């Protein structure tokens, strides 16, 4: 039983981190209509900044720089590339983002090499134990922080003028601009927010039980794509729930692989996509995809 609970706790905490990444995908998509395939390298950039700066300026200062750096990188990508696209074609933008991803990733890979850069977080390799469940401290903190971040996001989107403006712009940009809302600003804000969330996720993904920053970290962002898709492309809540589902299902699939060996090895790789496909078969617009509530 405690084995199951441990795997469940692992899955939930990992799922919350995936949720942070998936929410970034959603926000960029709703604010600028771009499928941001460069999200992984933005994440890696944020985490990389933390890893190289934590020695000279201290971990917490490095965290701030990392988050700000990733946010800024997002804003730059949006300002320099996305906004200048002649045609707002989602396909073109997505392919452009793939290109950006390859460029950033090549440069970061060159800098990181085949070493593993420690993130230098104060929680190190500590673990917490409660009720027979052992969870890395970093994961426990990540889970708590993710919940706080989601709370802050809720407050931002539901209670502040800027957040409501972003939602309005996402729902109907044309009309929102008639209200004086500048779409360039809501777009930039979306990219910045997504970058910051990615950096936070990156810090925890590079923390124990992972050893540190390695170029493969960028690929983890792709693990959040099934979460994003099954939650419904444009739903923040869907991204969070999707992240939790993928996290838990992956952890359980790996944890019980020996009992599921008739399905073959390497289940953890396949299961997220299988779940995504199953969900989409039943609900083609994802769990929380926009379904117009119309009553006239």
């Amino acid at each position, binding site marked *: 039983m405690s084995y199951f609970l441990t795997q469940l706790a692992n899955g939930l905490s990992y799922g919350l981190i995936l949720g942070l990444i998936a929410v970034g995908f959603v926000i960029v998509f709703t604010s600028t209509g771009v499928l941001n395939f460069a999200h992984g390298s933005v994440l890696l950039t944020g985490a990389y900044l933390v890893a190289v700066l934590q020695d000279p300026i201290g971990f917490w200062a490095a965290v701030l720089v990392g988050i700000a750096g990733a946010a800024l990188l997002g804003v730059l990508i949006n300002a320099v590339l996305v906004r200048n696209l002649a045609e707002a074609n989602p396909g073109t933008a997505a392919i452009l983002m793939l290109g950006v991803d390859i460029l950033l990733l090549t440069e970061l890979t060159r800098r990181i090499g085949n070493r593993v850069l420690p993130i230098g977080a104060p929680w190190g390799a500590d673990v917490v134990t409660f009720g027979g469940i052992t969870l890395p401290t970093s994961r426990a903190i990540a889970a708590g922080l993710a919940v706080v971040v989601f709370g802050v996001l809720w407050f931002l989107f539901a209670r502040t003028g800027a957040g409501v403006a972003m939602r309005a712009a996402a729902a109907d940009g044309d009309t929102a601009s*008639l209200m004086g809302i500048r779409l360039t600003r809501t777009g930039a804000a979306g990219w910045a927010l997504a970058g910051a969330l990615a950096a936070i996720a990156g810090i925890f993904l590079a923390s124990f039980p992972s050893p540190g920053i390695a170029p493969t970290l960028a690929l983890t962002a792709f693990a959040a794509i099934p979460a994003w898709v099954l939650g419904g492309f444009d739903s923040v809540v869907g991204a969070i729930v999707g992240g939790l589902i993928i996290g838990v299902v992956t952890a359980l699939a790996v944890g019980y692989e020996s009992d599921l060996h008739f399905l073959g090895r390497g289940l953890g790789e396949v299961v997220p996509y299988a779940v995504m496909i199953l969900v989409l078969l039943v609900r083609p617009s994802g769990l929380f995809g926009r379904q117009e509530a119309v009553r006239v």
Partner: protein
Amino acid sequence: MPDPILIVDDLAVAYDGAVQALRGVSLRVDTGSVVAVLGSNGAGKTTLLRAISRSLGSVGGAVTAGTIRFEGEDLARRDTSWVVRAGLVQAPEGRRIFRDLTVEENLRAGGYTVRDAAARKEASERVYDLFPILAERRSQRGGLLSGGQQQMLAMGRALMTSPKLLLLDEPSLGLAPQLVEQIGDIIAQIHAQGTSVLLIEQNAAMGLRVADRAYVLEVGAVTAEGSSAELSATDDIRDRYLGVGTSEPAPTAPGEERAETTTGLQRSSTARAQQLRVEDLTVRFGGITALSDVSFTVEAGTIHALIGPNGAGKSTCINVLGGAYRATSGTVHYGDAVLSALPSHRIADLGVARTFQNISLSLEASVEDNLLVGRHRLMRTGTVSQALRLPRARREERAEREAVRRIAALLGIEDLLDRSVHTLSYGDRKRVEMGRALAAEPTLLLLDEPVAGMTHGESTVMADAIRAVQQELGLSVLLVEHDMPFVMGLAERVTVLDFGKHIAEGTPQDVQRDPEVLRAYLGTAAA
């Protein structure tokens, strides 16, 4: 003469660098006045408003000549955001409220440019005073409001910045007669509070009632202007926009008189219209009961209207018939088939076609392509032979294009076949949508507000077209519409809904005399 707040001088606008939408348009709005712009669909009214609010860019339009001055300031180099901050706000056509946002959040978004929290609070208090129903529903999602409430929200949202000049694009569109009157009163009230208003209205009676001055826009140019009183007295205006004297037409025996509009439409199958029986239909969304035990029958080959105030459940009913919503209880029979148990594509296979209140067309595709999509159900050749352009497929394609052309001619949109839909006005899009439904050669046609946003003259053309296809294809028509002259002149039977309940049924004459209907729906306008 009072100071003008807005001067438009010799304005020209083109779309995609080619389609000339406005030519040499000049108009002025004096401070503290209400100015109405009348005109048929495609005349360029919305284009004019977009040019003033600097929002042409997003629809591919550009000012090619002329100037717009707001309080003496040339707007040529200004963007929407600046214009809003300067005190000029547009409430867009079709309400365009943010459906997933609550009423309160919609207003918040409207007041985005107001930095001062106290001023924002004051503005929202004013809006709630003006529209008490919005205060009641402040935490409800915008998409759940009725059409009238949505229009109020759209206006309230625009008022959040306390604008000096308010641009209103078709505020009465799709509203029941009673509500149209109410919107008119509200405009007068907004005006009384010191806001100047530039109003676009297809409901010329309402427009002229609230406006001090009016302009008539036709095919991109101003053809008449003057005080509202002057214009109301003009014969031409009365004929084309007010429809005075034709509001009570006896349903003309259509057969003989309309013979000359024969269009050569022929069914490519032997499908025949069937009787549509709606029995004890109930639909609930969460806690809201949209329809409650509604029963009525549409006889094969007749035109049947469903009327009632906004929020009465008319669209819900159409949506159930078309398969978009599931009935909570009750059944719908079409001939022997049980519609309420089928998914929407199976319903389409039975020969049921529909149009939508909120038009759903492929915006980038041409009108012709949109109509051809409607033919898809009837095409015989497979995708492969079409892709290979085999002779049989080419022959069929020619035949299909010819059929589409005839439908377009019938609806008066023949000249628009090559245009892409996003360049069309609301009314023209309605006609394209109707054409697409007809292209499928249905035996039962469900029309959701087919003449919303059309002038009197245009709705007459539409009525003729509906009658003609009904005769030639022998189909049944069930329509939802607020335009009473249109309904009364066209329908053979009318069912009236109110708050999801069936309150009256009968011939148009019977229904119009029913006191219940007068109270709930028609108000004083039809009395």
